[in-house]
């Protein structure tokens, strides 16, 4: 019996630059087949903002005091439709005034519509980027909602996978997931979601979103690997914490909360009042976020004074491969073929 292990990820919001390379890496790896045009299994949004799908934090799902909570079914438009463009007319056949733009008129929402809008007021506005993928929760609301048992959590790495042969497209899972990380494929009539790059992990290759991140933002590894960075950041230093722990699904993607430059008083002089309101961060990460930020600031000050800091050196990760725990293989060196498509073969 393989002992139960959990692959986890830590995403450092102080290093994320919102460039969406993770989003494109995932798109070109997985969601480029029929019916998946509008799917982004990895997204990056600017907080504060509506995020994607639009207003997902108000769409319910997850658990309260152990009890399942009803959720709203997100629409394709709320995820952001995949606009097509009138390239043929505008570039090759157009008369002078054929403007190249989305077919179907002016869009008013898109996957990254509120990029860089932020919150608060100048000069004390605030914003940070937050990447999201399926959290492969320890208590997955999607798995418990599916009447056909078509979703299962793999023993060897805790990855939550939909078996598309069993899925009838009921989408109770899409409603029940409090993070709204599940998409519906209108062509195959099945629900589809992030599979934590299981075929890559099985070959020792990091996930596309973590390996291709130019900001070196994502730590990847097993939660129980004590000398790995994830265990240290989550349990020892407690600077990596779950997003919306109150949803009670015990997500396995953790976030290092964002620091920010000082805000200003009336005359424009810097004061040491949090530019990012602490109550806003509490609403995202819970009460643990305050002490985490204090620790980050203290450790940075230690380094500035010339001292040592294991926490800072871990977050810096001077040797890039230290980010990825046991997954350090370059995909090009993997066998020329990755066998089964995970979705419909397991279980």
């Amino acid at each position, binding site marked *: 019996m393989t002992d139960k292990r959990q692959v986890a990820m830590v995403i450092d919001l102080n290093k994320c630059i919102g460039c969406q390379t993770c989003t494109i890496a995932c798109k070109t790896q997985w969601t480029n087949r029929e019916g998946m045009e509008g799917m982004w299994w990895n997204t990056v949004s600017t907080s504060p903002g509506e995020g994607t799908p639009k207003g997902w934090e108000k769409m319910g799902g997850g658990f309260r005091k152990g009890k399942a909570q009803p959720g709203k079914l997100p629409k394709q438009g709320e995820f952001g439709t995949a606009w097509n463009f009138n390239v043929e007319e505008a570039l090759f056949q157009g008369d002078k005034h054929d403007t190249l733009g989305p077919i179907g008129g002016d869009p008013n929402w898109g996957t990254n519509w509120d990029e860089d809008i932020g919150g608060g007021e100048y000069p004390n506005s605030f914003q940070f980027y937050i990447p999201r993928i399926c959290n492969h929760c320890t208590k997955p*609301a999607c798995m418990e909602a599916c009447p056909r048992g078509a979703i299962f959590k793999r023993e060897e790495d805790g990855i939550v996978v939909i078996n598309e042969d069993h899925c*009838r497209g009921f989408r109770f899972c899409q409603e029940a997931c409090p993070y709204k990380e599940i998409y519906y494929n*209108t062509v195959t009539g099945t629900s589809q979601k992030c599979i934590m790059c299981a075929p890559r992990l099985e070959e020792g290759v990091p996930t596309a979103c973590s390996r291709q991140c130019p900001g070196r933002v994502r730590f990847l590894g097993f939660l129980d690997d004590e000398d790995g960075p994830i265990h240290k950041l989550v349990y020892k230093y407690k600077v990596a914490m779950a997003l919306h722990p109150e949803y009670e699904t015990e997500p396995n993607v953790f976030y290092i909360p964002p620091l920010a430059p000082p805000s200003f008083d009336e005359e424009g002089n810097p004061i040491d009042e949090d530019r990012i309101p602490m109550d806003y961060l509490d609403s995202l990460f819970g009460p643990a976020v305050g002490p985490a930020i204090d620790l980050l600031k203290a450790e940075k000050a230690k380094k500035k004074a010339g001292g040592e800091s294991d926490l800072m050196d871990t977050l810096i990760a001077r040797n890039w491969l230290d980010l990825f725990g046991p997954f350090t293989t370059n995909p090009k060196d993997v066998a020329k073929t990755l066998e089964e498509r995970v979705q419909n073969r397991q279980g």
Partner: protein
Amino acid sequence: MRVQKVNTIAEYTDPAAPGWGSVEVTEIETIPAPLGLQPTEYIQVSWEERPYGALEQASLRAVHDGTSIAIQMIWEDPQPSTGAGEGFPDGAAIAFPVHGEPELMQMGSPEAPMQFVQWQASKKQARSVLAKGIGSTLPGAAVGETATGSWSGGRWTVVFTRSLAGEGESANLVPGSNTQIGIAVWNGSNEERAGIKAVSADWTALALDR
């Protein structure tokens, strides 16, 4: 409910076939499938305050020609949903016991399974499904099942056909003998799917002419 003998069911496969006019109608009452029986807590919790399965009854007619049976089912549905894109399709199903005394509300049991033929507005082919209890539906044995539906004037008319005899774990229908029939209807525009549906409270006796 009586299944009239005819020489061939070929003329009855079209929902609007004139032949149906002279076939005896049986009304089968339907009630919302009980919330308590929904297989997962999430479904129960999210449909607690939401009305579903509001259909009161459906009218059925049935004929058989010794080799296969055709069943016409008509029910009220002001808003047809073909389930295009993200929508949920309207649907209907006709169930028969395979063997033993399957409890209709429990969708049968391992010892007493039941088989049903399902029609969905979003698909052309019908589906044969075997159920051995709630949440345990598996693809059923092929019984040459077909289903064609058409909507007009606020009503769906669907004609199911299947062979009388079925190999493997499928419900056998024998001319001249009695069996039972149960129905289910999904209203797509109310996002009804899986266990959220209108069902006949219990089996209705079904007598096949010789």
